């Protein structure tokens, strides 16, 4: 039979989404979800805020220190500390256990090597040294263009260091169904009329899980692609496809 669900979801092995699938030696695939420009810009803004506060606090501390130890020593200390904060902030946090600056962490992001493992000090160092080039000509325009033109949203520093910025799946940053979408009606499980392949079963179950996040017309549009299986279209098609999904998932 003509099965269009699987073709839509992943014909020719070419994924429609940005997931990066990596096979581990442990015999399992992991999936990385690279983060786009917007969320990374937000993370950077948070880091910038923290950085500015740190600079203000440091200059106050520097003045206090100058009063105690004299100008020269305080100026030297402040230069070294300022240098350390300026170049070390990102390196320190990204090379740490969490692999994320406070800003990235807040946005649920993490820096990883492109194999999915921790990035390591050398790679983190590289990606932050090349930050200079990403900033050029103005306000991270270089990095923005690089992100837009690479498949895994890598800025120049990421390309040089072989790193990715990915979403870290955590309990407190789960993507919820969009509020205001009418939930699809509950359905009774119903077996599909023909034997489905593994991928096809997967596509039907995913439809069941995701359809709650879409608007009604979008649901119908996607379900219409599977009209060969459901034998009907529109809202009936959605219901039948969801029924098959429940049967496949729960029994």
């Amino acid at each position, binding site marked *: 039979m003509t099965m269009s669900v699987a073709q839509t979801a992943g014909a020719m092995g070419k994924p429609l989404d940005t997931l990066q699938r990596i096979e*581990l030696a*442990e*015999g*399992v695939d*992991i*999936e*990385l979800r690279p983060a786009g420009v917007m969320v990374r810009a937000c993370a950077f803004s948070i880091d910038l805020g923290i950085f500015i506060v740190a600079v203000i606090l440091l200059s106050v501390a520097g003045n206090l220190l100058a009063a105690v130890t*004299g*100008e*020269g*020593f*305080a*100026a*030297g*200390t*402040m*230069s*070294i500390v300022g*240098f350390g904060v*300026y*170049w070390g902030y990102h390196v320190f946090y990204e090379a740490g*256990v*969490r692999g994320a600056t406070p800003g990235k962490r807040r946005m649920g992001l993490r820096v*990883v090597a492109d194999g*999915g*493992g*921790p990035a*390591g*000090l*050398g*790679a983190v*160092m*590289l990606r932050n*040294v*090349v*930050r*200079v*080039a990403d900033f*050029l000509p103005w306000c991270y325009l*270089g990095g923005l263009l690089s992100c837009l033109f*690479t498949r895994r949203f890598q800025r*120049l*520093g990421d*390309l*040089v*260091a*072989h790193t990715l910025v990915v979403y*870290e*799946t*955590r309990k407190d940053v789960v993507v919820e169904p969009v509020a205001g979408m009418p939930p699809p009606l509950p359905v009774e499980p119903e077996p599909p009329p023909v034997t489905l392949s*593994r*991928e096809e079963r*997967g596509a039907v*179950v*995913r439809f069941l*899980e*995701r359809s709650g996040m879409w608007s009604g017309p979008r649901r119908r549009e996607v379900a219409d692609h599977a009209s060969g299986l459901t034998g009907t279209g529109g809202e009936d098609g959605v219901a039948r496809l969801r029924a098959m999904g429940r049967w496949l*998932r*729960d*029994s």
Partner: protein
Amino acid sequence: MTQQAFTEQNRERWAETEALASALEKGGKTAEAVRLPMLYRQLCADSALAQHRIYGEKLCGELNALVIRCRNLLAREEGAAAWRVATLLLRDFPVAVRREWRLFALAMLLFFGPMAGMVAAAKYDPRWIFAVLGPGEMRMLDGMYGPGDEKEFLRGEFGSDFGMFGHYIENNVSIGLRMAGAGVLAMVGALFALAYQGVVIGAMQGYVHYAGDTEKFYRFVSGHAAFELVGIVICGTAGLRLGQAVLKPGRMSRGDALAEAGRQALPLIYGGCLLVFFAAFIEGFWSASPGPTSVKYAVGAMNWLLLAVYLCGCGRGGKEGSGAA
């Protein structure tokens, strides 16, 4: 087996794995940590099974995230920092400089060429120097190296050796790091920065030849010149290496070439910055100290020699590796 049964069956073990991972991520050292490899293997098997049976996205996603977390915990590099620094200094850095000797020579030329030109300009056409330096800089140089009254270089401004030391670190190492990073733009950033630094430093030197007391000047700079200038040039070399991957990726894709260039440039960045850092030490605590000029010159010459021997000879015979990467 249905997804629900599968989940019921393994839920407790996943929760245990999750709790252990959280504890280890917080940096706690628990005796339970020895169980992580076993739990991780079982988790991998579960995740593979869930993916194969195409259980729902939520379950697969959670298992996926947990696999990644456990793997990161197991793969974390720890300790041996001293070993990695030693490998870098005794092998990887000098080996990298020799491997990139062509780019290093180009960087040296770009930096010292304009510098020599500006010094020559002092004799033949000082207008070149005036075109680079502003009146403020010339006045400052007059104050520092002008004939006549002995002022303690920049010391009046910052007040102490330590103050200057900090200032040199911040200023010079930052220049080196920026040079290395900006080089990735098809070398342009590093080419420009190297030549620019050469012109500015050469103009200052030339101005002292033209209007100042050269002995005062060379007494001060001779001690740290070798490490500081060559350190900067090596940072520039790292930038050129990155840019080379964009201009001339060879038989690799540009992405692969960039990553390879990153690996090879890393010891240059580390090493160059360490040289500049070391030079800041000398500049802060030795260069301005009183002492006979001959001693200062001798130490300066020694440093050039030491650096040359180090870069040419160190790390030969061993196998090249990536101990510091």
